[in-house]
């Protein structure tokens, strides 16, 4: 069986989508981070592939930067956070398990509905892949909304960013390499800030659960 390039890209997009879905199913923060690492690694493959096709050394450099920040630095900080504040489990959600899955299924259906079909005109070869990346965007936003734990919400934001990058890649709306360097620098700064901010929240409230933060001011 011979696989074409667009089929391989579609398969990788499927893995990004599945990682976003499984982020809702896992109960351990370490599993959540592993899924984010897989997602980020696939995004790196997209960038490296694009760099090879366009023979761009700058894009290759961007790929290495993304690999460093998303696959190594971000998971490192999150793992440190888990160890420092003993937040191994992240099972608390606003909706229960079955309802969460129902919403995920509805979001997937919505991404494939006629409302978003016009988006497929952006891309000639891989329309299903584009709709999958759209589904991954919606599912990541839902992770952000549904989880009570701050760490899950952080991973949700980063998963959303990964899904947006894959959407841009598939719709051939990628930013210029210089712009991508700027974005990855922003991301690095964001990761450092949320790491420090999470530490401060834990110091103040003794937990990383966002539901206990009812009173942000001292009384």
């Amino acid at each position, binding site marked *: 069986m011979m*696989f074409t390039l667009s089929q*391989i890209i579609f398969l990788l997009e499927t893995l990004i989508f599945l990682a976003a879905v499984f982020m809702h*199913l896992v109960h351990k923060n370490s599993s959540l981070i592993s899924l984010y690492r897989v997602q980020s690694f696939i995004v790196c493959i997209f960038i490296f592939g694009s760099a090879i096709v366009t023979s761009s050394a700058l894009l290759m450099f961007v790929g290495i930067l993304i690999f460093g920040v998303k696959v190594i630095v971000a998971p490192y900080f999150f793992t440190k956070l888990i160890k420092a504040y003993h937040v191994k489990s992240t099972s608390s959600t606003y909706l229960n398990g079955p309802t969460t*899955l129902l919403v995920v*299924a509805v979001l*997937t*259906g919505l991404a494939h509905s006629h409302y978003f079909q016009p988006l497929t005109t952006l891309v000639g070869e891989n329309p299903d892949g584009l709709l999958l990346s759209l589904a991954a965007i919606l599912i990541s936003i839902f992770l952000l909304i549904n989880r009570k734990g701050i760490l899950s919400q952080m991973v949700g934001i980063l998963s959303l960013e990964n899904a947006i990058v894959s959407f841009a890649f598939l719709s051939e709306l990628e930013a210029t390499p210089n712009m991508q360097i700027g974005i990855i620098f922003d991301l690095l700064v964001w990761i450092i800030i949320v790491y420090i901010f999470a530490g401060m929240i834990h110091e103040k409230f003794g937990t990383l659960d966002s539901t206990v933060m009812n009173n942000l001011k001292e009384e």
Partner: protein
Amino acid sequence: MTIIIWTIQLALVPILSPLFLGVLRKIKARFQNRVGANIFQPYRNLWKLFHKDEVMSEDASWIFRIAPYLIFTITIILGASIPLFSTWLSNNLLSDFLAVVYLVALSTFFLALAGIDVGSAFGGFGSSREMTLAALTEGGFIFSFLALSFLAHSTNLFFIASAVSVLPLFSFTPIVLVFISFVIIMLCETAHFPFDNPATHLELTMVHEAMILEYSGKRLALIEWAAANKFLIFLALGANMFFPWGLTAQTDAWSVVSALGIFVVKVLILTTFVAILESSIAKFRFFRLYDLLFTAFILSAMAILLIL
């Protein structure tokens, strides 16, 4: 040649099933730093049980007496009705996925009846647990094959296997989702972790073992053999419905032998996967199993959404 191939199809599941159970136990033992029993130990166990006398409760009715024969026969019929190594052995009556799902349900039903028949407390709670799980499993099981049948435009398992083998990679997103769902269903139906622990007789955890606690001798041998058959049937369904490469459409000896070899390798890989899974996860609390089964159902529903 056709008669020989049909004979192989009919006999393959009951002959090989204890072997794969032995392989599973061996791999699990190695994971626990034990040497473990020989992979042929399940055959010896069956031999031993077939030569033992039976003890039967005086309260046992005809259901208790007949259930092992019925359950074993159902697994033999199931084994002959699904694609094992060939795509041309299809029959319209029993190779339909609904027939397969409901034959599995029928064997579960009789096993549960046999469990409560003698009136022991263990049999009662085992049957109760089994039927609770079976009710939740059935939907996911049907939906997982329904997704494949939408892809193949047929409900016949042999046609589905042929159609899936020529699908482009673009069609594999729903198949991946359905496979994950099927694995969850398989673990539940075959009484493996995280649903059941086949190696324990603890009152708090056992499901399948509780129902067959009153059996002994030949009938116990048949029940154990039927359980091994069911495990191999599910492995074969997993290997041939989702990865249907290697099935032969030819009737010559070389094609059949190579297809049989590929079948054994695929099933061995799946057995190893189940053994690794069983060795790396703990048994779930009973009330957490609903979520897992609902996950299987939703994953299949998502796959159908993607296909439609």
